[in-house]
């Protein structure tokens, strides 16, 4: 018997990090449909199911809409359920995303961020996942392959606590197809962290109930109120899950990650892999004596408004980099940051849209953004970075 749980290190892609995370979470029902750049996630899970590494049923459905519908059935009947998708696949699921959240089912899904067509694109941006903002799914944006793997396991912990589904988001190619060294936690330790799914309510022939029946105006609103309550509760549950994970596995990520924000005049706000690039630029500028900082938003729903306010309390300017756009308004993270700060402090917030459809966000792009924000006093809601006019 092992005295100390051990882990192994593998060089794997972000996609395979998702697969390992799902395998270690001992998911029981998987249902999926292929779409680039997600497909490798479910290919490896198919292998795990075929070779007995994972004792799950894999339903190979005829569409993403059906993938989510199958998981809704499976989760309602008490199984831990998993799927992965991307872009148009996620859009096709839209109706069932509402259904899964409204039914309070703790499904976990990986979404590989890919731009929406037309024109066809397979490269990364966040419009697919952010278009699903209001479906009642928690959303978590990951920066590294290790974070991806760890977050899948944490996601089930939180989802099954608050009974809301989790969408775990990673960038197409930049993470999905890029291999990094990843520590694969020991199964025994994961089992200790994540006990089997034991739902309070499920389809049970010994205790028959109807699920999802017509709710008149007298009851519907309370059910939605409870969803919001659970979302609010989820903030502390994510904190707790993250802390407990850190104690067992030695890695913590937080809901947000402030980096040199304490004394920063200008704070960049990023999500996903843009953060890694920005961190390098911040280091360089710091060496040059510039008071710049970085705030990574990891948890997007529920939005950690209070933590964001706290992290930005000393900033004089904020520049939000959005790899997405809400047409007719601007970058979506910028709107969220403004919304979090609006009633608290008249802080200038720049909304900068960059990197749509997988266009690279390089250190030079980040420097351009920082220089723009430093050079302007009046904040602008929408600044396009690197667009050819």
């Amino acid at each position: 018997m092992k005295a100390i749980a051990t882990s192994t290190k593998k060089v794997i892609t972000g996609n395979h990090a998702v697969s390992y995370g799902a395998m270690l979470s001992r998911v029981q029902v998987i249902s999926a449909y292929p779409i680039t750049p997600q497909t490798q996630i479910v290919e490896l899970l198919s292998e795990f199911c075929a070779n007995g590494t994972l004792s799950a049923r894999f339903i190979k459905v005829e569409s993403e809409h059906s993938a989510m519908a199958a998981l809704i059935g499976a989760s309602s009947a008490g199984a831990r359920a998993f799927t992965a998708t991307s872009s148009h696949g996620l859009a096709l699921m839209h109706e069932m995303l509402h259904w899964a959240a409204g039914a309070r089912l703790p499904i976990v899904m990986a979404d590989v961020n890919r731009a929406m067509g037309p024109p066809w694109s397979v490269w990364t941006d966040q419009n697919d996942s952010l278009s699903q903002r209001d479906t009642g799914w928690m959303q978590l944006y990951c920066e590294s392959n290790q974070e991806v793997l760890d977050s899948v396991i944490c996601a089930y912990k939180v989802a099954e606590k608050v009974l809301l589904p989790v969408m775990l988001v990673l960038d197409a190619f930049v993470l999905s197809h890029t291999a990094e060294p990843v520590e694969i936690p020991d199964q025994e330790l994961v089992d200790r962290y994540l006990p089997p799914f034991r739902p309070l309510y499920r389809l049970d022939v010994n205790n028959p109930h109807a699920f999802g029946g017509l709710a008149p105006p007298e009851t519907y609103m309370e059910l939605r109120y409870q969803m919001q309550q659970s979302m609010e509760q989820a903030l502390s549950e994510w904190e707790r899950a993250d802390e407990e994970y850190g104690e067992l596995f030695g890695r913590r990520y937080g809901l947000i990650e402030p980096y040199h924000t304490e004394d920063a005049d200008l704070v960049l706000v990023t999500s996903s892999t843009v953060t890694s690039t920005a961190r390098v630029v911040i280091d360089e500028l710091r060496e040059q004596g510039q008071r710049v900082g970085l705030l990574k938003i990891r948890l997007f729903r529920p939005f950690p408004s209070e933590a964001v306010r706290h992290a930005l309390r000393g900033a004089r300017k904020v520049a939000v980099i959005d790899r997405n756009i809400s047409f007719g308004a601007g970058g979506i993270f910028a709107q969220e940051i403004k919304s979090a700060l609006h009633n608290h402090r008249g802080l200038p917030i720049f909304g900068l849209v960059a990197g749509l459809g997988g266009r690279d966000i390089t250190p030079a792009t980040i420097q351009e953004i920082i220089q723009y924000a430093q050079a302007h006093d009046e904040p602008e809601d929408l600044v396009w970075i690197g667009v050819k006019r």
Partner: protein
Amino acid sequence: MSHVNFTVPEVELMGSGHLGCQGCGATLGMRYVLKALGPKTIVVLPACCWTIIAGPFPYSSLKVPLLHTAFETAAVAASGVRAALDVQGDTETTVLAWAGDGGTFDIGLQSLSGAAERNENILYVCYDNEAYMNTGIQRSSATPYLAWTTTTPKLSPKGEPKKDMMGIMAAHRIPYAATASIAYPDDLVRKIEKAKSIRGMKFIHLLSPCPPGWKISSELSVKLARLAVQTKVFPLYEIEEGTHYTISVMPDGIPAREYFTQQGRFSHLREEDTERIQKIVDTEWERLLDKCRDHM
């Protein structure tokens, strides 16, 4: 005292407090089907009349678990329930997908085809009232030729024949498919019991008269369901493995007009329309007999 042989189980798994219309064929259908399946059944219900009939939250007119799901997902949500039961070691409970014709012939056809192709171990019953009755009688692809609906008004009744759903299911080579009628409960119960005993995908096409939608008096539901069979408009048969056809009830061969003239939705039919329909009915019946003969 004469001896009566009950072929329909006495168990009642549907409560009387449902919200079906008077004379609703779909309520009779559910009652018989659950009698045949017994209490170890989970019902998966997409949007359809039964969404309402089952009762609003927090009520249920069924004494078995019921999962409401989106319109186009009956077969696949049932597949998910089946998978979850299997991984938890319950291979005994029957998963019943219960959908209307809209949810089966139209919007749910894709996920039904997927489940059939995967040969999911579920029982799918389509209760067919031949239009979108829950939204107020709009045409579906199950609506018969020349029928009136609110979207096929009498000046322009439905110009296309009813979709051959049984042919589609047979083409999937599923282990068992059968047509059934609320007017033949013993036959219906036998088919459900048979379906229950078969592993893999089972499909039952159940004709369910709808008094408001067919413009008939509510006491005529069972009579018209029987006439549909006796006139060969809706023959009762089974298909095993997609190829082996068997007629379950030999029709008397009553003229089809007997069936059509009693329904308000066909009140605009002219003599030549009825004659044309009779020819189609006869041709379809011969085709069905040919399929039966192929495997005798």
